[in-house]
């Protein structure tokens, strides 16, 4: 019963956040609301017994992403979103069609916590039964990410590094050019 109440409260707050993000025009407030949204999603993950994911969501979504969004707002110096006068019918149609297709697709999904779901019957069983023996690591999430799926994680880390270098190349070169321009002028 108490779990149901927590679920309902969290999901209602999520909907409120999503709707208010759409309505608020002040971009500073929107980035704060995005942070709160991430915090709520992290709480939902926590309720679903996924602390590793909740951790990442709270640290990245609420912390780093919010600060980066604020930094971007400070660079662009845009404080308010422009008000759209006309209703854009074609995008609205596409969104509605995609949304209804996604809703239709959920009928094929297995129920939450269903032990017979394909995701739980294939290889997960082996990880759970032999993971700790094979890797000596009690936290199964770490064992799967670092050892069984070591290639994927190496790829992810490389993506993070590439993203950092990409931003350095894009934003730093302009700064140097500006300095040269000042010297030349």
């Amino acid at each position, binding site marked *: 019963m108490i779990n149901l109440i927590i679920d309902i409260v969290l999901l209602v707050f999520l909907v409120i956040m999503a709707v208010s993000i759409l309505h608020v025009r002040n971009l500073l407030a929107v980035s704060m609301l995005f942070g709160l949204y991430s915090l709520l999603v992290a709480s939902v993950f926590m309720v679903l017994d996924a602390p590793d994911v909740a951790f990442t969501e709270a640290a990245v979504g609420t912390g780093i992403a919010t600060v980066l969004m604020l930094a971007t707002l400070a660079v662009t110096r845009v404080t308010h979103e422009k008000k759209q006068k006309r209703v854009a019918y074609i995008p609205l149609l596409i969104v509605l069609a995609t949304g209804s297709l996604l809703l239709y697709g959920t009928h094929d999904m297995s129920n939450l916590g269903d032990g017979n779901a394909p995701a739980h019957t294939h290889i997960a069983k082996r990880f759970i039964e032999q993971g700790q023996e094979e890797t*000596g690591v009690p936290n199964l999430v770490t064992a799967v990410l670092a050892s069984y799926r070591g290639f994927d*994680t190496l790829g992810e880390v490389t993506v993070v*590094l590439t993203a*950092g270098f990409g931003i350095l190349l894009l934003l730093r070169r302009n700064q140097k050019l500006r300095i040269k321009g000042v010297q030349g002028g």
Partner: protein
Amino acid sequence: MGDNLILKVMAKALIPVIILFALYVQFHGDYSPGGGFQAGVIFSSAVLLYALVFGLDAAAKVLPDKALIATASLGVLIYAGTGVASMFLGGEYLNYSVLGKTAQSGQHLGIIVIELGVGLTVAATMLLIFFTFARRTRAQ
């Protein structure tokens, strides 16, 4: 943030705790929730707090860009190097079983080492991205 005393005192109290927590998440990630990625982000948020309260220059004095770029690359090098090391010891790429005396201890060691690599890269890259954005703000 100027001379806000409350912010400065609170930041000074919080930053060591955040860094300690990041190290706990990093090196205890094999027993409790967490791991390199989470630890890296938490660590970078501690430095981020320092930069927001005490200014970019103070933070850049502790962690200059060159050190950050080197650390970010070192993390990937540690990760990929672990794979190469296990190849030299007779296993497949990233098969940590050959790193230790038993397959289990080798796996455990390999996981700790590559998580360290992940943590270094993530922490350094997050800070690099933030510093680069923040400097753009100031340059205008």
